[in-house]
């Protein structure tokens, strides 16, 4: 009885998928040649692919402070591709670290509090309304608050990401537990399972499929929150690159950094999907597809009444 792969099974043919990307790129290039307006910074408002691939990428070296064989442009050095790679690498490390730490803390917090809340009537009565209220507050509206509280530090960005992830994970966990058939918990009880054993053998494994969708949603949110936090209040990171590029209207660099964000978001998304596939190999086929739809649609599982 080998486990079936949990990856999407009905994919469009490769040439179609690549074809769509080619059309988007071609349309962009066409737009660059139609709208030739040049912004105040000297960057075209709609930069061509060639401009993005040369000028915009190379000039990201502006964010490199020198060393490792690449001069610091701010100290009068030359902007080099190597410098750009180093600058992007350094910023990426900062951003990835924040997302990783923030997501880890947020997930743990959200799952633990969510599971405890959904299995305790009293706790649910206390927690659920305020948590659902927090869920309704736009996360980005709170970003300045975190900047005020934590200043321009990593701690501020990480706690902001952890906050957002934990709220989404909490509501997702409540939803996941609420759709877990009650008979499983009753069966555990009639086997004499303790509360802890019920969490371990029944509730936690039982909510994995729904939680997988929530985790993927939370991961997407984490990248959004990371951009917001870095634009508002940090000294380094991809978001800082984007912020400075925006301020000086370097449209091309903004687009390059956005594409880097997109790349990381996609890579982490598929990485989590791949790594967690083994956890849902027991699922019937149609359920796998439903949970994937939920994840791709970006909708959190429905909150409980």
């Amino acid at each position, binding site marked *: 009885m080998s486990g079936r792969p949990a990856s999407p099974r009905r994919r469009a043919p490769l040439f179609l998928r690549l074809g769509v990307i080619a059309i988007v790129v071609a349309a962009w290039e066409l737009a660059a040649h139609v709208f030739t307006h040049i912004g105040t910074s000297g960057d075209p408002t709609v930069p061509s692919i060639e401009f993005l691939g040369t000028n915009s990428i190379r000039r990201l070296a502006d964010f490199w402070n020198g060393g490792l064989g690449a001069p610091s442009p701010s100290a009068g050095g030359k902007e080099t591709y190597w410098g750009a790679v180093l600058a992007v690498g350094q910023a990426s490390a900062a951003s990835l670290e924040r997302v990783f730490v923030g997501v880890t803390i947020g997930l743990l917090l959200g799952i633990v509090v969510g599971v405890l809340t959904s299995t305790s009537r009293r706790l649910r009565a206390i927690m659920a309304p305020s948590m659902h209220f927090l869920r309704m507050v736009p996360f980005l509206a709170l970003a300045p608050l975190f900047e005020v509280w934590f200043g321009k530090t990593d701690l501020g960005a990480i706690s902001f990401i952890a906050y957002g992830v934990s709220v989404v994970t909490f509501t997702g966990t409540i939803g996941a537990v609420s759709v877990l058939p009650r008979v499983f918990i*009753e069966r555990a009880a009639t086997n004499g399972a303790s509360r802890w054993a019920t969490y371990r053998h029944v509730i936690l494994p039982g909510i994995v499929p729904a939680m997988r969708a929530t985790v993927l949603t939370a991961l997407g949110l984490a990248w959004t929150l990371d951009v917001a936090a870095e634009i508002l209040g940090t000294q380094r990171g991809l978001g800082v690159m984007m912020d400075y590029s925006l301020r000086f209207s370097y449209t091309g660099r903004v687009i390059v950094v956005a594409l880097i964000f997109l790349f990381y978001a996609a890579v982490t998304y598929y990485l989590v999907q791949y790594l967690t596939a083994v956890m849902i190999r027991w699922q019937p086929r149609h359920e796998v597809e439903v949970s994937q739809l939920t994840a791709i649609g970006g909708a959190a599982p429905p909150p409980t009444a």
Partner: protein
Amino acid sequence: MTAPGPPGGQRMDPVPVATQLEHRAETTASAHIRIRDARVSFTRADGPNVDALAGVDLQVERGEFVCIIGRSGEGKTTLLNAVAGLVPLSGGEVLVDDRHVTKPGADRGVIFQADSVFPWMRVLANVEFGLRIRGIPRRRRREVAMEHLRQVELDGVAHAWPRELSGGMRARVAVAAVFANDPEVLLADEPFGALDYVTRRRLQAVILEQWGRTRKTVLFVTHDVEEALVLASRIIVVSRGQIVENLPIELGRPRSEAMLASKEAVAIRALLLEHLGIAAPTTKRHDGAPLAAEELS
């Protein structure tokens, strides 16, 4: 090395132990399950208080196979859940082995109406679950689980995922899981209700075989008169939260088609159908003895 004796250096006398046990058996010579004036009520969302159980008295002897039948929503499942400890009583008491039932426990195994096989555990792990909870060492519980899978002819799929099994096979996994845990009392809540006729008959045979071997005390809820006739040593009819019929079934075992077509069986069937509101009412009420067939015409 001899076993340590009682304080004071007195010798252990084997005889009084046996007498003690006999004495204990006499003083606790009561039914395995005793239900006294059990009441369960809840408030319906639209206001009124509903008595799911309205004062049930029932005694079940050790080793009896009691089928509970009744129309849906009349309290069969609530009665079973009260014994399982899954619903709190609002009055009366339920005793199993002279102990008050206050919560679920491993001494009362339940085969649920819904599919209760954990989809995230392979078949073997599902059957091992109860033993694992009780802290039985891995090797031992594997042996026990495999033996019970063999008894339901599923040892060949021990390492399959439940999703790879048919509904009937999963029902057999549930049966194996409950018997592997060796409960004192087996509670079954329409366990085969969702299955096709042939599968249901096979599973009834499996249950009877297990019961024959272990002589567990069984409470078996069903809406199916035929199923009750095949299985029960006693049939109880529940209506509006009360027991309205308590009928020993003295048909032989194994129950052949001939036995199920006997006059006695026909009379019981007619009586049960009447309780379920299907047959035309007979002029005479049941007085404890089976009705004669001509009385029903």
